[in-house]
């Protein structure tokens, strides 16, 4: 009787444990349950967190929450608008002539030799707590003269017991701009900025010479104190104002001021991390970013987890009070103090399967959609729109889609003797191929429908993009009254015949036309894409030969102009059409000038319009010029326009204030979590199921019972026969 009661009690306890209490499969500490923490994942460890080097999307997702450049983008307004961040107000451009004499605001671009921006920063902004700022009682910096012996037991920032802070000063912004030219840091934007910031090119050369001298003296690892070397075009005006002087007129420079490249870096942090022994102990600014933003990095273990926590010294900011007309649901927190989330935990999740499953269990608050889980999450409605499946809706998951400020295209090398050039023959050939290669089908097959066919180089959301009938590429599409319709393959064949390649035979030589597609070396999974591409060309009887090489050889071919047809893409640095149209500007030719114009396209009419357009503010006049430029491009067809990818993201019901932003990255501060709802849902979705386990044990026991009986009988028997084996 007592045994039966004990078993019943045990069973009830087990049921109670299973039914109530925290889920057993929760990967986070029990102490964090119900806390205001965002959980998300990353699949590739960031290589650089130093703002002078960091340029990849998987790096900026961290840096953008920590560093505060002078400007930022409005979270809700579209088109994207710059607003002050660390700066007090948007800087105003002042123009100077070649003699440094002021010019009026409406001066002609040709007369403007320099543009000067004076940037005044907000007062009272403090850095996050950091040992570099810590001071002794006598006022000297506590951790600035450390020996290797002092650093013996210090491998993480938290090993330094004291921290301090100080106010942000204009000199910190100047110091960071100087760091762009640091010879050991290899900033990716140095080349670009050398063309604009006065004196930066000479400064970079000067630092190279200094560094070479240090290496010769055996001090190649020693700190290079940039405060000893002034930069002509960047200086402090006072403690809270600094000045940047750039060559000519470049209104898009303000967009760069919204990127971490131009965020402040204090000299004491740089010198702190430059001390001998720091790098050997993996203590570098590249590993431990230091900023004034709403968050600070408290754990950097990119092998497992990276954690951002609320910066206790954050100066404060409020949620926007206005947005677009459709943003009414996003203004519930208007005017409230930011940030809302206390902590963001980024867990390394290399494989898509566990990442997806943990999202469905509620352990990640948001997720992308992999191709293997696409059908599970999204279905196409009768109207051709992507909607969530019933299973997703049942969990209260929301879908947000947004066209990325990116473009993927197939380029023709305009220097190639067959496909390149401006002869009518070459132009018609390119147009014929553009009609034949069906990117609508490509998007459907290879992108799960996640993209829109490109009509030109400018993606949606960027000024200059035209919607609807006004925006279609008439070479490829017609308008049926409601939507674009691709021209038929017969139109492509007609263009090809007009080019002198009737049925794919060169009328001059009588030989079949063979074109070469230069691609980076691909694995088996890309074979289907290459086969598809060959079929597109085969539709108009052109033989396409893929020439796969490794990425470095491919880059060499592009640089030397040896590729014929290639694929490329571009993500916007900033929301201005100049950042896309410059990819086809003659002066940017890859072969001529090592620029970004990989097609080596050079059309004087286009270039003239580009020079006219690039410095204009957004206006109907600018739109007209852009329309003419796009018409030229469509007629010349240096690219097959490819597609603009569409990003799909899923968010749980407890994740608020989400608005996809394809340009700004410092959006974590606006987002809000309902941890109570999340906890309830996790419990609901993750009740442990024990009965299969118990059933399995019982079956195993039943399976072995006859054998045990056989063994018992064998032991009790009188003699044992031959050993069987």
């Amino acid at each position, binding site marked *: 009787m007592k045994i039966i009661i004990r078993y019943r009690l045990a069973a009830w306890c087990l049921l109670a444990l299973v039914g109530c209490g925290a889920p057993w*499969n929760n990967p986070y500490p029990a102490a964090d349950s119900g806390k205001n923490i965002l959980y998300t994942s990353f699949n590739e460890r960031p290589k650089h967190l130093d703002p002078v080097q960091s340029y990849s999307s998987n790096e900026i997702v961290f840096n953008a929450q920590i560093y505060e450049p002078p400007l930022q983008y409005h979270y809700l307004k579209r088109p994207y608008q710059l607003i002050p961040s660390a700066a007090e107000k948007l800087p105003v451009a002042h123009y100077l002539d070649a003699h440094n004499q002021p010019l009026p605001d409406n001066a002609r671009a040709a007369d403007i030799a320099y543009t000067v921006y004076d940037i005044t920063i907000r007062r009272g902004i403090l850095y996050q707590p950091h040992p570099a700022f810590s001071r002794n009682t006598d006022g000297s910096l506590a951790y600035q003269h450390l020996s290797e012996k002092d650093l013996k037991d210090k491998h993480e920032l938290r090993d330094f017991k004291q921290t301090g802070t100080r106010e942000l000063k204009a000199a910190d912004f100047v110091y960071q701009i100087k760091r762009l030219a640091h010879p050991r840091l290899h900033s990716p934007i140095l*080349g670009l900025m050398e063309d604009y910031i006065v004196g930066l090119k000479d400064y970079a050369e000067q630092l190279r010479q200094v560094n070479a001298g240090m290496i010769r003296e055996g001090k190649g690892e020693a700190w290079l104190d940039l405060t000893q070397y002034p930069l002509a075009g960047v200086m402090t005006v006072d403690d809270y104002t600094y000045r940047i002087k750039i060559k000519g007129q470049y209104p898009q420079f303000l967009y760069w001021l919204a990127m971490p490249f131009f965020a402040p870096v204090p000299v004491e942090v740089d010198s702190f991390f430059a001390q001998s022994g720091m790098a050997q102990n993996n203590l570098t600014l590249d590993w431990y970013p230091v900023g004034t933003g709403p968050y600070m990095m408290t754990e950097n273990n990119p092998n497992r987890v990276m954690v951002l926590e609320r910066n206790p010294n954050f100066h404060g900011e409020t949620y926007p009070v206005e947005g677009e007309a459709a943003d009414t649901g996003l203004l519930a927190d208007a005017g409230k103090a930011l940030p809302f989330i206390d902590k963001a935990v980024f867990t390394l999740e290399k494989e898509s*399967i566990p990442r997806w499953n943990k999202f469905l269990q509620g352990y990640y608050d948001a997720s992308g959609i992999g191709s293997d889980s696409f059908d599970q999450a999204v279905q196409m409605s009768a109207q051709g729109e992507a909607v969530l499946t019933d299973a997703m809706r049942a969990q209260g998951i929301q879908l947000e889609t947004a066209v990325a400020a990116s473009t993927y295209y197939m380029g023709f090398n305009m220097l190639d003797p067959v496909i390149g050039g401006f002869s009518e023959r070459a132009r018609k050939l390119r147009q014929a191929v553009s009609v034949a290669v069906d990117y609508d089908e490509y998007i459907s097959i290879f992108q799960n429908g996640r993209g829109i066919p490109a009509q030109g180089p400018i993606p949606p959301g960027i000024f200059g993009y035209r919607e609807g009938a006004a925006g279609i590429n008439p070479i490829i599409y017609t308008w049926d009254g409601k939507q674009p319709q691709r021209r038929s393959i017969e139109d492509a064949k007609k263009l090809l015949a007009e080019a002198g390649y009737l049925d794919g035979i060169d009328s001059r030589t009588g030989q079949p036309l063979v074109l070469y597609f230069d691609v980076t070396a691909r694995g088996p999974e890309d074979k289907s894409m290459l086969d598809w591409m060959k079929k597109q060309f085969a539709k108009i009887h052109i033989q396409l030969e893929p020439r796969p090489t490794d990425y470095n050889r491919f880059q060499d071919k592009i640089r030397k102009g040896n590729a014929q047809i290639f694929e490329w893409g571009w993500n916007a640095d900033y929301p201005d059409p100049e950042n896309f149209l410059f990819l086809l500007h003659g002066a940017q030719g890859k072969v001529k000038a090592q620029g970004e114009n990989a097609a080596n396209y050079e059309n004087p009419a286009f270039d003239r319009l580009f020079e006219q357009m690039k410095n204009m503010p957004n206006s109907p006049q600018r739109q007209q010029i852009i329309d003419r430029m796009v018409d030229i491009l469509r007629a010349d067809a240096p690219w097959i326009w490819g597609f603009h990818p569409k990003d799909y993201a899923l968010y749980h019901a407890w994740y608020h204030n989400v608005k996809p932003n394809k340009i700004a990255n410092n959006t974590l501060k606006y987002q809000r979590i309902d941890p109570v709802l999340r906890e309830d849902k996790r419990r609901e979705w993750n009740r442990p199921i024990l009965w299969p386990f118990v059933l399995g044990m019982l079956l195993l026991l039943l399976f072995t019972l006859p054998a045990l009986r*056989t063994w018992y009988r064998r032991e009790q028997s009188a003699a044992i026969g031959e050993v069987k084996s």
Partner: protein
Amino acid sequence: MIAYLVRRLLYAIPILVGVNVITFGLFFMVNTPDDMARMQLGIKRVTPEAIEGWKHEHGYDKPLFYHRAAAGFSKVSDTIFYQKSLRMFVFDFGAADDGRDIGHEIGKRMWPSFAVALPAFFVGLLIYITFALGFAFFRATYIDFWGVILCVVAMSISAMFYIIGGQYVISKLWHLVPISGYAGTVGDTLRFLLLPVAIGIVGGFGASVRLYRTFFLEEMGKDYVRTARAKGLSEGAVLFRHVLNNALIPILTTVVVAIPSLFLGSLLVESFFGIPGLGSYTIDAISMQDFSIVRAMVFIGSLLYIAGLMLTDISYTLVDPRVRFS
């Protein structure tokens, strides 16, 4: 024994040099210093000057094996091979391409690898021996028959299936343990390790149980076992007191050689379960074309393999008095 060990250690040197050379050759056959530079510098706005600068800073602008333009010994010493590979013989692994100290990283990441590999190894060994002994005990019965079928089926299934299936059933459907992850504290770590350890054990079940069963059955066919039975010992006493001891000798040789490689972790398990061990460290280094890490891990792996072989020889002489070093 000392002479034997010294001889084996001396043999190890040319082996390690050879492994180093082959690793170096294979790596740079597939990757070039320019590739490595681009991997670190990114894709956007990477200039040829930046690539050359990176290569110069990291010592990858030198010739691979032989510097024709240099003088004297510099023809050999002013090369990538000499600068990058030879100092490993003094266990100076240097820094990875991202600047982080490799020795420190290995020291940090080996514990998570151990945390998965050691329990899977020892608990697995116990389970495999138990089952193998059980199948041998119930030989020629339905248990043995279905056991062997189970082993063959288990051997035929790929490790990836066990991992994905295990995560799906145990974590996703039954919600018993976290799908993936790892924690810094001991208490939290245990619940993350249950599933990868279980999968590690299940993954090795088929092959190991079949092999050990064969060892046990071979012993059971020997004369001394027949004698023990004839003397009236129970089957249990025969198995546990006589057969097990002698069958452990061949089991030991297969097991001891594997012990050092536990240090290196499992690439698949660590990737899928998010365990920051040496297995994922190596696979990440290969993807990132970080030669410094790859050569360090291959060097350590070779060293451990040689150590494993030596340990096997030593343990063989300890358990079998008939075996002596020659």
